[in-house]
């Protein structure tokens, strides 16, 4: 009974990353193909295993010991018609599968359209880093955008009659990564020196989980991915906030000065301040994100402080070092970062 509960529980959890719970056309096309091939292979499975077990049972030696054990069975050397038949049957199945997968291929890999006014489409360049995601928003509904965020991709939900497709240009800053959110689309690699194009479109708002699917070094497992699908109104509110430079709250001027005086700014960017590093996640609207460390822990004050004190306590082997800041300075910097809504 406990096992059943556990099973049901894990089935409910699994829905958030299952390839059989598609919420976007490419993932739906692939599921259709998957069901077709499951039916065909299950049929082959039962036929062949059936013949195998029947033969073992029917022709086993103990059953035939009644006769003279030294006689050999009839020797059959082969048969051309039979061979032709069981060459043709699999060939036919292969033909059907090639046709089906070709159709699916053209459905999930369309030609890349160019942004145009009123197209309702979102264009984002996703750049893989060891071990986090950079999202550079370039265009929405034909209107050019130019801001950068990290690890949580916000996209608008479509409505019946008004699809809002998302086109991702995939790139890498270091090694090969792979963008995989199973409910939205199949995975596609982010390859240094190559531009890849991935698309999806969903009408269901919600949180879609995924993670890097190509081994990329120490924290490959810690390169989690969150796609937040919002109603168009919510998305546009989020967009408007992200386009603003960072909040400049005079109450934390001391903290801001502490932040800018440290090496933080070599790698991190806070738009509207001298901090314009490009190696690490953009912190302009850090507090608009729900998680830290590429999805590993909730983004709250306690985790933020723990992270800055020693990132390796949360994400062993990540590229941000522990700087040995004094507790006072740590608090000042956390105070400042906590205002970056």
């Amino acid at each position, binding site marked *: 009974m406990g096992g059943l509960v556990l099973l049901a529980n*894990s089935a409910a959890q699994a829905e958030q*990353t299952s390839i059989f719970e598609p919420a976007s056309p490419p993932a739906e096309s692939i599921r259709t193909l998957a069901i077709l091939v499951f039916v065909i292979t299950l049929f082959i499975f039962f036929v062949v295993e059936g013949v195998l077990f029947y033969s*073992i049972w029917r022709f086993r030696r103990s059953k035939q010991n009644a006769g003279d054990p030294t006689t050999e069975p009839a*020797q059959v050397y082969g048969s051309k018609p039979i061979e032709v038949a069981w060459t043709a049957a*699999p060939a036919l199945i292969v033909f059907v599968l090639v046709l089906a*997968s070709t159709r699916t291929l053209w459905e999930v890999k369309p030609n890349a359209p160019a942004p145009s006014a009123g197209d309702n489409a979102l264009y984002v360049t996703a750049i893989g880093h060891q071990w986090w995601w950079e999202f550079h928003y370039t265009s929405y509904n034909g209107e050019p955008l130019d801001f950068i965020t990290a690890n949580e991709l916000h996209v608008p939900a479509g409505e019946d009659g008004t699809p809002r497709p998302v086109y991702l240009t995939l790139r890498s800053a270091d090694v090969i990564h792979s963008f995989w959110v199973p409910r939205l689309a199949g995975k596609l690699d982010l390859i240094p020196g190559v531009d890849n194009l991935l698309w999806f479109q969903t009408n269901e708002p919600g949180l879609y989980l995924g993670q890097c699917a190509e*081994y990329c070094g120490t924290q490959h497992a810690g390169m989690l991915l969150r796609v937040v699908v919002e109603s168009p109104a919510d998305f546009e509110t989020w967009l408007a906030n992200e386009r603003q430079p960072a909040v400049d709250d005079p109450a934390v001027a001391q903290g801001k000065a502490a932040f800018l005086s440290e090496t933080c700014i070599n790698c991190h960017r806070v738009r509207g301040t001298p901090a314009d590093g490009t190696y690490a996640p953009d912190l302009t609207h850090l507090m608009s994100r729900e998680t830290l460390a590429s999805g590993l822990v909730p983004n709250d004050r306690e985790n933020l402080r723990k992270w800055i004190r020693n990132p390796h306590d949360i994400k062993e082997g990540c590229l941000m070092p522990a700087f040995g800041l004094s507790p006072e300075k740590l608090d000042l910097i956390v105070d400042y970062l906590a205002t970056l809504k």
Partner: protein
Amino acid sequence: MAVAERQHDLASQAATKPAWTAVLHDWVTTADHKKIGIMYILMGTVFLVIAGAQALFMRWQLVYARHDFVSPDVFNQLFTMHGTTMVFFVGMPMIIGMANYVVPLQVGARDMAFPRLNALGFWLTLFGGLLVYFSYATGGAPALGWFAYAPLTTKTFARSAATDFWALGLIVSGFGTLTAGINFVATIVAMRAPGMTFRKIPFYPWTILWTSVQILIAIPPLTAALIMVMFDRQLDAHFFDPQNNGSVVLWQHLFWFFGHPEVYILILPIFGIVSEVIPVFSRKVLFGYEFMAAATMAIAFISLGVWAHHMFVIGMSRTLDMYFAAASLLVSIPTGIKFFNWLATMYGGRISMASPMLFCMGFLAMFLIGGLTGIMLALAPFDFQLSDSYFVVGHFHWVLIGGTLFGLFAGFYYWYPKATGRMLSERLAKWQFWLLLIGFFLTFGPMHISGMLGMPRRIFTYEADRGWELWNQISTIGAFIQAPSYVIFVWNLLWSLRHGKPAGDDPWDAFTLEWATTSPPPAYNFDSLPVVHSRRPLWDAKHPDDPDWQYE
């Protein structure tokens, strides 16, 4: 030499037991294909234990979500060394070793065509393996994954010399494998017994011939690519460095141009073993030999043109995706032909389920499943979801354990009596078989499910809220059920060496030439070279009234 005289030799040898240094010297300097074959298999067994232990460490790390048993870097090293070892230092040596022992006997030759080259091949393979393990002396093994995708292998991302040891070791053992391939081709083409025309070659040597052709075509690109890695690392070349117009995709093409034929190098010889065992234990001739032979060649050729199905997720054009999907699916046609012919051979036979046949049946039942999940992976769009997920891990272990390993065990149980003069214990064989089968099912079955639930491979831990924990726990339990089956196997090998039932020359009442000589065979294999009239020379000898050559 007369048999009595030889037995006298053996008796006098036993009376004056040679010093262990003399025995060691004899084995180290030997050029006898049988001793070299046994050394290959011993090497494979030792590395099997090492790589198996690595697998258990990984399974224990994955037993709980966010489990903290080994560090991420150690985990990444474990799966790199596990994969590299199992493919290059367990699978290949066992396959080459078994063929080394059996092929010259089956084609009626006194030894391989180039005995000294044969010895060189073994020692290169062994030292290649040791070189790869030397990487631990640099402070840790490489953490690349066994296919070591660029640019992870560049100095920027792999700073220690571990990667250099890894690449050097594989270059060295690659040359060893090449010499074995050359030797098998020469032996099978030029050293066959009188009367054994090309159409009368027993099925196992026939598959080894085409395996060797694949070795000759597939290994050089790997060696070249590894040398390019060394150039990049040691001489600041930029083959795989994208910042200097190098291409990381080039590595994938070169690696998989080796890597795909490689998986057939690991399975074609098994098709050969199964095609020897099923007829003997069904008391029938192999059904449709010509079609089986042609299917073997077809697999060897088609599999040279399917490599990029490992690369569907790099974003190739739709046309290339379609071509590689179609070509990969084509392989299933000759493989299907083989399956149906094996079943037809059993049909109407008198089937004994002795240990070699038991493992063959395990092979048929399991390899089918691995083949069917292979069809799923060949469909490019479905692969966009499945690639690099645990589904793939489940699939290729199903093929390599359910296929290659079950087939190898069938070969061990079949030919051990020939090599040692003793039978392996049937009781231990049954224990091994059922523990392995159940453990294998529990370990790799759930991986297909967790993969479809979105779990990527090569992650050292996972989030608790994903619903993957249960499936990982079943896998881990399965791994610990499997583990004792390997202990039983090794124990059986050792125990039976002294206590096994005496085998006699031909314990299975078999059909091919290796059973015409003593067990174990003398250094020169045959007193006089046998003359062959059909594919089953011993059947002809036992049934002079109804010989095979009348029908072939």
